[in-house]
């Protein structure tokens, strides 16, 4: 069965100071997503986490495999919609994965669906 990483990109300013209601509503939407995956034949969630804001990120850059890495404060790419969380989902095929990605909660951004490269 193919596996897909769902990368959830969203406007992270929403989560600067969320109210209890906002948090509860977001949790409910993730609950609904989990139920949708459970209800889809053959599909399952293999993992997933929410990420702290991009302000907490550190990036090591190097321009060659043997080069000395340069440490910078912040995410690899500065974008308005930032990577805020992920799910690892097993699905029958891309059609089923995309169907599930439609109910994956994102407010002002998008879900990138990337097939996992099974090496070996």
């Amino acid at each position, binding site marked *: 069965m*193919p596996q897909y990483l769902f990368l959830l990109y969203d406007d992270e300013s929403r989560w600067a100071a969320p109210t209890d209601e906002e948090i509860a509503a977001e949790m409910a939407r993730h609950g609904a997503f989990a139920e949708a995956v459970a209800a889809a034949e053959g599909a399952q969630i293999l993992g997933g986490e929410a990420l702290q804001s991009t302000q907490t990120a550190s990036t090591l850059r190097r321009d060659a495999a043997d080069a000395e890495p340069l440490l910078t404060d912040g995410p690899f790419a500065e974008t308005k919609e930032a990577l805020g969380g992920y799910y690892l989902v097993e*699905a*029958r*095929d*891309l*059609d089923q*994965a995309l169907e599930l990605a439609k109910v994956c909660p994102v407010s002002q951004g998008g879900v990138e*669906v990337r*097939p996992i*490269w099974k090496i070996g």
Partner: protein
Amino acid sequence: MTRGGDAVGTALEEAHRAQWPVLVATTVRVLRDLDAAEECVQDAFASALRAWRTDGVPANPAAWLTTATRNRATDRLRRLATERRALPALVGEAERLTRDGLPSSPAGEATDEGEDLLRLVLLCTHPALSPEARLALTLRAVCGVPTAQVARVMLTSEPTTAARLTRAKKKIAAAGIPLRLPGPADRHERVAGALDVVHLVVTCAHESPGADDGLAARALLLARALVRLAPEETEARGLLALAVLTGARDAARRSPDGSVVLLADQDRSRWDRAAVAEGLALVQRLMPHPAGRFTLQAAIAAEHARAPDAARTDWPQVLRLYDALLAEWPTPVVALNRAVAVAEVDGPLAGLRAIEAVAADPALARYPWLPAARADLRRRSGDRSGALADYRHALVLAADPADRAFLQGRLRELAG
């Protein structure tokens, strides 16, 4: 049995048009690999060329090609099984293929050639692929058009097209785009997406400078197949009617010197009568309530096909159909064509006002037929210098030699 090079060439060409889509469709189901399936079918045609030259054209070319393709697919499965040194499933599949022939499904699901073809078309037109990739893949894998001609038709270079095809096939394999008919909830949307691509194939076949007669025939076969495969879709019949009526005008579309001849100036006695009759009958069945962009376009084409000449066209009806089309499919090119109909109903000045309303659309900024249409209306309203300027502007934008020849002709008439 027929002998002789010419007969072989003709038979082979005809078989390629008619059999390529189904052969690839059934082979890809067995091999689960679009590239491999294309190769098997390609090899089968190459061996047909050699064998038929020697032995003559077989009584049933389709059956000959099916067997030849199946043999190659079987070889491939055996080789794969050996390479992977295990996989009894593959060996079993190869044996089953030898015994039962191509249309045996690995999953044991009931299937037929039509379903195979629909699966292939929906795979190549999958919404997760870019629009350019969908068109290129449909031309190459479904219609069997060589990559070099796909490039000419799509006005890109051959390396670009080859890279685009490779990328698309890689995504199909890596992302797991399934070769499967969609469920009832998605079927309408997926078939509608496929119809959009088939419409582009039809448009390319008739308008692209890189197209030839064979492509129009392939596009028409594909449009016919979709009516058969999705009989519930009115728009599939609308698209077929549009393809038939567009094809009917092919012989009159170019003048002897190769320049474009506009609909109004075409010698209608050169239209294909049988095709016009078929197209009109198809449209008749979609009336009196045409809806959907292809059906409406077909209804407009039918109005032109019915008219003995441009002057005796039912322009008020054409304009009503354009109004409906613009509501259904609001694109600047439709708005421009509607403006031309406005000119026929209410005069060139009304047409010019309608053109002004769309002229600022950035999508038309490099579209030569915008200044060309305006030039014609300016000429008819007595504004000769305005018309000259517009034709010159159109000539700067036009790239197709046939379009350029037409525009140069108009400039000469106006200047002389």
